[in-house]
């Protein structure tokens, strides 16, 4: 008859502990504004108000400073690793209105390209999916979004969406390379026809979706729900399902999850994840797109997960094993 283990609940999560595997002392002289690991999780890049970007080798719990990248003339807001198929490439953006793309060659990091086409602070950089080649989206307080495409031979092609967000653009995030409606009627034998899409958030309280059509960037959708500046947007990675998901967070303390089941990508529905007491600065999706990390002005990090019935629940303080995440401030307190 039916084997016994099958009676066990399928969605029982592993009970292993969430554990701190590394604590990196960056020695930045001023506050850190972003920290990000590369594709393999072997290196950590941090950026700070001290105008530097630092890269650490964090393999096996180590923290070896690999590079101290100087070149920005203002606080550096964000960094982004490119896909390793293009080499070791890191982009950084700063208050000094510049975007710098750094590349490691023969063990040394150097400026590969410096983009100075923005007229105000550049707040966000994000590399597109590797399927599109080396393409970087940059959002700036001058309201524009720039798309830098590497065309080979040290050349970068620049496309600029002027006035993408009135007053300023605060965040950009690429959609995964999936064919809209790919799951239906895709003629076999043809290479999938990927459409470049990304999402942006700005000071006009809007979340906007952009799509490339015939080489031109067009506003595809405008999502309204926030009542203050949108501080971050995150397009969830795809695991092959036909649903697109976007998270957005705002100065108003709200985090919205936007979903679209419509293959044409026209109908987006918003679901309020939570209203926080302070500004929410950042949202980040796990690789499988089912857990969202939310962080903001309250110096705390919470993890959220969608249950089987479609409700979002905070999982970072529900069970013993995971409590480490919720009390990040405490953790740090103990360490210092």
């Amino acid at each position, binding site marked *: 008859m*039916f*084997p016994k283990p*099958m*009676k066990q*609940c*399928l969605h*029982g*999560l*592993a009970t292993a502990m*969430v554990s701190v*595997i*590394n604590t*990196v002392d960056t*020695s*930045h002289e001023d*506050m*850190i*504004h*972003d*920290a*990000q690991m*590369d*594709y*393999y*999780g072997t290196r*950590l890049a941090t950026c700070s108000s*001290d105008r530097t970007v630092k890269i650490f080798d*964090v393999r096996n719990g180590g923290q070896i400073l690999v590079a101290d990248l100087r070149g920005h*003339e203002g*606080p550096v*807001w964000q960094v982004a690793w490119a896909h390793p198929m293009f080499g070791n490439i890191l982009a950084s953006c700063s208050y000094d209105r510049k975007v710098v793309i750094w590349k490691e060659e023969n063990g040394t990091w150097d400026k590969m390209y410096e983009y100075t086409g923005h007229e*105000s602070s550049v707040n966000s950089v994000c590399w597109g999916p590797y399927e599109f080649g080396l393409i970087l989206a940059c959002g700036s*307080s001058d309201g524009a979004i720039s798309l830098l495409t590497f065309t080979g031979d040290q050349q970068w092609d620049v496309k600029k969406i002027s006035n993408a967000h009135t*007053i300023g653009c605060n965040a950009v995030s690429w959609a995964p390379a*999936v064919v809209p409606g790919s*799951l239906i*009627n895709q003629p076999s*034998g043809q290479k999938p026809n990927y459409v470049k899409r990304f999402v942006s958030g700005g000071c006009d309280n809007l979340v906007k979706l952009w799509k490339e059509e015939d080489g031109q960037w067009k506003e595809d959708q405008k999502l309204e729900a926030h*009542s*203050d500046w949108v501080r971050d947007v995150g397009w969830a990675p*795809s*695991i*092959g*399902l*036909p649903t697109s998901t976007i998270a957005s967070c705002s*100065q*108003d303390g709200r985090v919205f999850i936007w979903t679209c089941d419509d293959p044409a990508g026209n109908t987006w529905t918003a679901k309020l994840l939570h209203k926080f007491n302070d*500004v929410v600065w950042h949202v*980040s999706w796990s690789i499988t797109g089912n857990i969202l*990390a939310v*962080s*903001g*002005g309250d*110096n705390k*990090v919470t*993890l959220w997960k969608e249950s089987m019935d479609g409700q979002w629940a905070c999982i970072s303080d529900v069970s013993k094993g995971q409590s*480490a995440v919720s009390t*990040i401030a405490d953790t*740090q307190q103990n360490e*210092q």
Partner: protein
Amino acid sequence: MSVDCLGTHAVLSGRHFLYMVNLEAPSEPPRKIARQSKWDVGTVQWNPHRSEAHVFAASSNQRVDLYSWRDGCGEAHTSLLGHTRVISDLDWSCFDSELLATSSVDTYIYIWDTRDTRKPTVALSAVAGASQVKWNRKNQHLLASSHDGDVRVWDKRKPSTAVEYVAAHLSKIHGLDWHSDNEYIFATSSQDNSVRFWDYRQPRKYLNILSCQVPVWKARYTPFSNGLVTIMVPQLRRENSLLLWSTLDLNSPVHAFVGHDDVVLEFQWRPQKEGSKDFQLVTWSRDQTMRIWRVDPQLQKLCVSDMVEDLMEGMSLTVESEKFMSSQEPENPDGGHQDLAAGSGLAQTLQQEFSLVNLQIRNVNVEMDAMNRSCVVSAHFGSHQVHLVVKFPAQYPNNAAPTFQFTPPTTIPSAMKTKIQKILRDTSFQKVKRNQNCLEPCVRQLVSCLESDMTQEDSPASGPFVLSNPVTPSLQAFPRVTNTYGSYQDANIPFPRTSGARFCGTGCLVYFTRPITMHRCAPPTEPTPRSLSALSAYHSGVLTPMKMRSEPPSTLRLYSGSPTRSDKDTVSISSFYYKERKSRRFKTKREGVDYNRPIKLAGKVIIQEISCLLPVHKTLGESYILNMSDIQETCQQNAAAALTVGRRDVVWALAAAATSQDLNPDFDPDTETPWARHPFGLTPDLCVCVCVYVRTDPPPPPLPSLDHYSQMSDVQTLAMLCSVFRSQAPPDSYFPYGHHSSRFPSHHSRYVSHSVTSGSCSSTSDSTTTSTWNTGETPWQHTAPWGESSPDDYRYGNQGYTDPRERERELHDMNKRLLDPANTLQFDDFKKCYGEILYRWGLRDKRADVLKFTSSPPEAHKGIEFGVYCCHCRSQARGTQCAVCKRLTFQCAICHVAVRGSSNFCLSCGHGGHTSHMMDWFWRQEECPAGCGCHCLLQSTF
């Protein structure tokens, strides 16, 4: 500051004294002229005529005092009284040594004859207050005045109306200068970041424009031809250098006079000495030093020839020859240090602050009254109305903070009033401690308080309160320049993140937070501010001018050597969090703690392993196997592997159980299906109605387990299942299909055709299983395509086929496929995503294993490609497998076996086959092996 026409004296104006500097002997202590006034000196200018070289005029509020300087001492001998409000500018005529023009915000421009000082000889009436007045240098009758963004050109003989009216700028004009050689041309410098050159005969269109990216305080022609010197608005405190431009090429400055440690307040050309080819530029800076710069002929030539190559050379000469003079003035006997500093700080008078303050904030109106040293701030926020009277003490901004008083009709609650008053007091005190102006920071602080309050109240009007950009479009591009807080002044740059978390790699959460030692100044109930401009209220410390990116590279290079930046002065976001700590110490009475002890500003970055929260497991990635020759073994091993990480996934166990049945491949669709009747005993609490084992006929409802795993985002299991039960099912495949999934809407279309033969599925759902289906979320019998079919349909419906056996076999092939083929692409996506994750884990072999099962189309072929018509279905195909019928597309003409590997065929008749067979055949034959009569060897070459 003004330099006399002989080039021997420069006068510096302070509140209590006028200082006379001997330019011939700049190291001598300056002489002083005491003055009795509570007003600062506005403008001071020497009479430019040699005969009257000892006379200079100094404006003080509504009055102009005429001083004479003889034999080392000076005195005010005459006062010109007439203006009713503060005098903004004065200018001596170049032609008549007795004529002095004055402009005032009272909208009048007066021309005085110093021989008759009782009243002005000419009064020119403009509707708007004037900021500048300048005599034409070629035409003795003409003079120009600036009014906000407009320029009026007057003829003193026709005082009733202006000769010409030029709408020069969109923002306030700070500087106006006539060309020294051309009577029609003048230059205007403005808050809108530009210098424009005009011929007043063509008032509609400027001759040329110089875009500076920052508001320009003064732009003056050089005494040598084609030159122009600009300084930036000193209140911005961003740029300590003077720039020399060639009017012939305004793209980049030809030289930067670098050296002052603070902003330049005033500059003037020293009249050329006889026989000297050099010119000298005298500059006065807020750093309390006066510098004299030599401009040698080489540099002068640059303005003409514009050869950038010469620039470095010219510059080095100039810098070497520059004279440096410190005018650290002697102790002021009565006022003390600070008085003196403020007095000679010149740019910080209340009138100037009022005239320069940028308060273009939505919903806010500020009425400024310099006469009474007060201003009224009125603001409307939603239902709230605020009237705030700010009074500036006489000492302001010299360590004397203004007072703030709410007046009716203010509607905010009194608790809020107290709170705001406290904040404003703190803000203003912060500023005046450093002799800085505080009106604008205070107003912005007020606005942000009101705004945050509105946000908290969540009133409907709380939406787009925006610290809006200046109205002028040209300023929009450079919003930074509109405030007076140095670098952190930006109303539309978001407040930086000081903590954050990001998922990285596959199973890591990287987060950084503020160090525990840092606290927010604001109470935790207040939300973190929205934009960087909020920082100005908190920041303490001298601002460092940001380097301007917009500067051309050549000047940047010059600046890089200038000692204008020191790390100590750098203002940071940390100031926002910093203050709390100080005040805390204060509270705990631990004063005397070394404030200079380095405080750790950067927290640690923590990497946390969170892979246990994810539905995918690296250990499973390593231990899962894909052995297609023994599916049962694969399933069992995978089940065991899953168990080791604590997952009791039914799927693998079930699949293993299913495969444990020893079933021989059977191609007859009519064969009884023992597993179809297998009572699975599925329990509803599993939420899955898994695995109807169907070997043949009953067409598969889609996997419920897939639906389940996709809800869990378990791409690992999804991909593995899709790979094990891949599209090309082995002959003894099993069908762990369950009920229909709403997530896969696409499968219906394909199934309609199958459903004709699908009737026997209902035979599986007797007894136990029937109840199971009904407890399931969506009984699959009810899905449209299945519901239509019945056993009868099957039994009789298919008799219409000409060859039912063949048709059945075909369908049987289709049905053998474990997973809905319509979703193949989706399954491929699962595999690709999982492959990507495996790649990140460094499990490249496993990745290759999984990706082997994707049905992704071959890479686009580059070059010539032979199209093939499938020998079975005649559809066009690429490669050896037909995309439509999935069979191998062509047969060998000799052995009649399908060709998979190397093949050759005739381009003429299209016949061919295995390369080895063809080689053998044509070794001896010339005609086609298919017997078509084609002489293949002659027609084409293999």
